């Protein structure tokens, strides 16, 4: 299907129509950041006339700009998921409609690539993640601005979606250039064709110029911070395995695990059993490899007793395990861990040090 166009006025109507089948989630601007919030109704919001609504309103939702503060994974690999009840084979059902998540950026879509290799096949599947991937609708969007911490180009990504979306929106001011990315997306464009018209070549040109301009901003960002490109990361963590850089970088780590929870690709979890009114209930909870007992066994042996070993492990997993096993780096350049870390540990700097030490 060719490029389509949807006007600013038509987008809320489309999203309202999608509410019939989906719970629509939109990024909302709060201060300097963006957070995913469920859309109740554009109409209701208009009537109440609240000045600073916390839920999406026609004034505060964000299609373009940059990624939301929370990682997209939270909707697919939930922080706390009930995974088993008693001894029943059936998977505990999810309440409510599937989700339509709007304004998803390219960095979070790469998160899907990583998590898909973990949770879907080839041998075992996580039925909860798989179902969410099948049911949920992704309306992604180009980045129209850049954060200081953005470095997606280093990981061979562009600041606009190229795969793993159903429909992509490119905000060009007067409206959005629209591109389907899946059969599901194509069917939706057909079904709601009244809202769309074919994009003009001038509109597509505007989009392309904007993409080039944002890409250039990320490039400058990367140059300013000396972030290495991923081709130079091959093998560096193993080569620096015994280097003092890990101890030095871990000096300010407080073992909070924020880098893990905020990361769009971190997938580790623990299983927690509880008795709920005498019934056995099992939860799958996000876990963090920075926490001391992460790899400890029952007898007390711990392969990574020191905090710096666990920090090194995080980099080994992302930049050594994943490229060797799944042919991709488990980092998207979203920069969330840089902003989340109370110890100001900067992943860009750690990678830079790794590459520089190998070159010496």
């Amino acid at each position, binding site marked *: 299907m060719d490029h389509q166009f949807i006007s600013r006025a038509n987008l809320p109507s489309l999203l309202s129509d999608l509410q019939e089948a989906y719970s629509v989630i939109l990024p909302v601007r709060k201060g300097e950041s963006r957070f995913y919030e469920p859309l109740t109704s554009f109409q209701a919001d208009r009537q109440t006339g609240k000045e600073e609504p916390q839920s999406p309103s026609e004034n505060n939702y964000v299609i373009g700009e940059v990624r939301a503060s929370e990682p997209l994974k939270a909707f697919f690999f939930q922080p706390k998921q009930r995974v088993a009840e*008693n*001894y029943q*084979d059936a998977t505990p059902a999810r309440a409510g409609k599937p989700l339509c998540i709007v304004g998803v950026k390219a960095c979070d879509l790469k998160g899907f690539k990583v998590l898909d290799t973990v949770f879907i096949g080839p041998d075992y599947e*996580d039925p909860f993640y798989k179902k969410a991937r099948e049911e949920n609708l992704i309306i992604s969007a180009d980045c129209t601005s850049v954060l200081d911490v953005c470095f997606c180009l280093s990981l061979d990504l562009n600041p606009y979606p190229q795969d793993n979306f159903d429909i992509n929106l490119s905000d060009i001011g007067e409206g959005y250039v629209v591109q389907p990315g899946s059969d599901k997306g194509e069917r939706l464009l057909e079904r709601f064709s009244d809202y769309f018209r074919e994009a003009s070549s001038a509109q597509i040109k505007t989009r392309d110029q904007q993409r080039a301009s944002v890409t250039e901003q990320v490039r400058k960002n990367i140059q300013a911070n000396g972030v290495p490109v991923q081709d130079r990361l091959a093998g560096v963590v193993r080569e620096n395995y015994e280097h003092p850089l890990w101890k030095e970088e871990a000096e300010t780590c407080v073992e909070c695990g924020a880098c893990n929870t905020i990361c769009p690709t971190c997938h580790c979890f*623990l299983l927690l059993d509880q008795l709920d009114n005498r019934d056995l209930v099992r939860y799958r909870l996000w876990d963090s490899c920075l926490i001391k007992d992460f*790899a400890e066994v029952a007898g007390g042996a711990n392969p990574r007793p020191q905090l710096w070993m666990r920090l090194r492990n995080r980099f080994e997993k992302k930049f050594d395990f994943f490229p060797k096993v799944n042919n991709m780096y488990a980092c998207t350049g979203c920069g969330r861990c840089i902003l989340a870390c109370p110890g100001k540990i900067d992943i860009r700097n750690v990678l830079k040090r790794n590459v520089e030490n190998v070159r010496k």
Partner: protein
Amino acid sequence: MYESSNPYRPIRTEVLETIEETPTIRTLKLKPDERISFETGQFIELTVPGAGEAPFTPSSEPSVQEALEVSVMRVGKVTERIHALKAGDTVGLRGPFGSGYPLDEFLGKELLVVGGGCGFAPLRSLMYELFRRSREFKKLLFRGGCRTPKDFLYRRQIEGWANRDDLDIELTVDEGDGDWRGNVGVVTTILDGLKMDPDTGVAVVCGPPVMMKFATMKLLDLGFKKSNLYLSMEKNMSCGFGKCGHCRIGTYYTCKDGPVFRYDKISDYPNIWD
């Protein structure tokens, strides 16, 4: 391969019997509501309702599908609760997971089994299978050690193996007592003078990490090839199917790619014994 559509779900399982083996080890005979078949060396996750799960390698005969046995050392929260279980109690069971001993690769060869302490549990299951098929191997040898005679898991049974004509066996304890008439010393002290060719022979090692480390080093000194050593690695195996991330060794997950590893596959990774 696990057949449930929900891999997190435990199968309801009845505790048929509990046996006190040593002051710290108990064996549980378990009957799952659904038949499960395991290959020797694979492991299961045992759930104590409300308390959590822990991984164990069955110590019983793989060919018996109606019930299976696990021998559990009391070392932590879950194992404490397992030791409190009685016949008739209900537990949960998931699995089997991982890859067990590749018996086909041992066929026609001289095979040495080295065990220590609670490592006798997985190895008993292996020995049942080796005895059943003993004619298919060129020679079977067993070298086992424990801390003291009191800690000797399956002592009577294993001492009884000395009467078999298809097995060359020697046992040792780190510290003897008045009754012990065998060798005293760590397990590496009974690895000298093996009547087998280390160049072509295969060795299986299972036991506490320190014992495995020193036994492996000793076997390499004796001339065994890295690619002929098979080790049972103990890591924090939680989900059992390579998703939760806790049991990674290098590019492997112990739960999925192990727990039995050929030594040359993991020998280059740092800290594997920790």
